């Protein structure tokens, strides 16, 4: 009898280990949406939202950055990336779904690795987005040391050294946080901004201020957020397999 019980207990334990989910994975899945739906595939992203982030007025002249304090930077033409304006469009604006029909939808966590590179003593890209639980790879591609300092307020902050070329670290974030600055204290001009979301409906404006993202049909609150110019919100409706344009305009602060 005792032997039978022992065997049954072991089998139960094996079954639990084999079928049970990693508690962290489970927590991330919960945060990845909330309501019903198949989290393995998520709602089909059949609609397209695109538009332009316009910068109104004369863009500020990019500030020249002296990298003379570190010969390893090898980037004499570095300029500030606070306002990158091309063809009248503002780059590095994080655009994301912040409300509306997103409620109750569950999305799988993307396994695609997002890379933040340190090259010529500046971050590439300057702004990026990723999902809660999605891996962020931070790599030093410079012939000098960097420290990677995430000034997180909601997620745990971290500060780690990357003493030489080729050193890399990978992080995941457990909670939504926009904007999460990443800075280098060795080169105090270096900064990058991250948006962490519980869903995949986010992107960053590129050349000409253009952005595009795929999303399920529905009516959404969309937010465009810039590191210094703040954020704007607009509602938009997109149909199944349809496309919608949504443009934002940012003005320099008085």
């Amino acid at each position, binding site marked *: 009898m005792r032997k039978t019980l022992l065997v049954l207990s072991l089998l139960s334990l094996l079954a639990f280990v084999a079928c049970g989910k990693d508690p962290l994975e489970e927590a991330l899945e919960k945060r990845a949406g909330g309501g019903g739906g198949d989290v393995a595939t998520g709602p089909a992203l059949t609609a397209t939202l695109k538009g332009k982030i316009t910068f109104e007025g004369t863009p500020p002249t990019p500030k020249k950055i002296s990298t003379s304090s570190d010969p390893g930077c090898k980037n004499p033409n570095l300029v500030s990336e606070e306002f990158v304006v091309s063809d009248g469009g503002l780059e590095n604006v994080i655009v994301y779904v912040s409300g509306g029909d997103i409620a109750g939808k569950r999305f799988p966590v993307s396994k695609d690795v997002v890379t933040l590179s340190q090259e010529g003593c500046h971050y590439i890209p300057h702004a990026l987005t990723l999902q809660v639980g999605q891996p962020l790879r931070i790599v030093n591609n410079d012939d000098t*040391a960097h420290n990677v300092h995430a000034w997180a307020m909601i997620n745990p902050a971290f500060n780690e050294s990357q*003493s030489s070329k080729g050193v890399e670290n990978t992080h995941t974030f457990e909670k939504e946080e926009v904007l999460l600055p990443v800075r280098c204290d060795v080169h105090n001009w270096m900064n990058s901004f991250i948006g962490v979301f519980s869903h995949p409906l986010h992107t960053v404006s590129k050349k000409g201020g253009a952005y595009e993202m795929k999303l399920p049909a529905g009516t959404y609150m969309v937010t465009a957020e810039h590191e210094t110019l703040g954020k704007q919100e607009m509602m938009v409706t997109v149909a199944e397999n349809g496309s919608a344009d949504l443009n934002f305009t940012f003005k320099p602060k008085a």
Partner: protein
Amino acid sequence: MSRNASVAGSLHEEGENIGLHRFALFTACSTAFLIFVGGMVTSHQAGLSVPDWPTSYGWNMFTFPPSKWVGGIFYEHGHRLVASFVGFLTVILASWAWLRESRLWLRLLSLGALVAVITQGILGGLTVKYLLPTSISMTHACLAQTFFCLTIALTFFTSPTWKHGLPRVHDGHKGLALPTVCALTTGAVYLQLLLGAWMRHTQSGLAIPDFPLAFGRIIPAFANYHVAIHFAHRVGAVVVTAAIIWTFSRLVRMHRKDRLLIGPAAVMLVLLCIQLTLGAFTIWTEKSPFITSMHVATGALILGASFLLTLRAFSMVVREKAWQ
């Protein structure tokens, strides 16, 4: 005769240790330089440029190659090295005092300085480990000033001036006793340095971007706590200015011939003028790191001068009743 004067008199017979005094003076000067270097770290926002502690990028602090001292690392690692040097000086100073000094209270004072410098080192490490929390960073900044005062006290108490017996001076003023005036001024300067540390470590240094006005007004609208902290530091500057002028004018009126008292007071007044100018230029240059660090260091020097004056006043000044 006051108690302090009698203590000073009795020490006259104890012989001198001029070497210890000079070493204490050297430690005090090194500490002033260390405060400047610490200011450079904050001014260059380099406090976390070396993420590990007590190692530097995995290296032993003392073997970290100079070729890697680039950007903010130069300031942060340099600060660690200068701090280690001051710590080393303090170990020697305390050992020296413990072995050669007959005055128990002075030996205990040197031990206090040693405890302070060790605590300061640990706090420095904690600021790195916990990513510059304001409370620890502020404590680190304030303990630096306290430690500087301890080195000044050790310099003063080991000086031949103290050991030979300080001259006693008569304070016939009807109001507050001169030592009390000096102590109040020192307290005001210390509080002002605390406010300055609070301002620096909450990134409020340019919360009011214009000077001498504040957003074009005398009293600004307190839109956020940064403005409030910054403005408090400006009000503190007015209070400290008034306190120093009050102390100096009192000395000029009643003790102008007492070189040991008027000397540090005059130094304090000159430093105040420099400090106010540096404060203005800190704003006008949008916190140029060198100017800002000089402002921090000059603040420490004012505290040092005021503290020395206070020590001397307590040691020398005899109230009218005691004099009679």
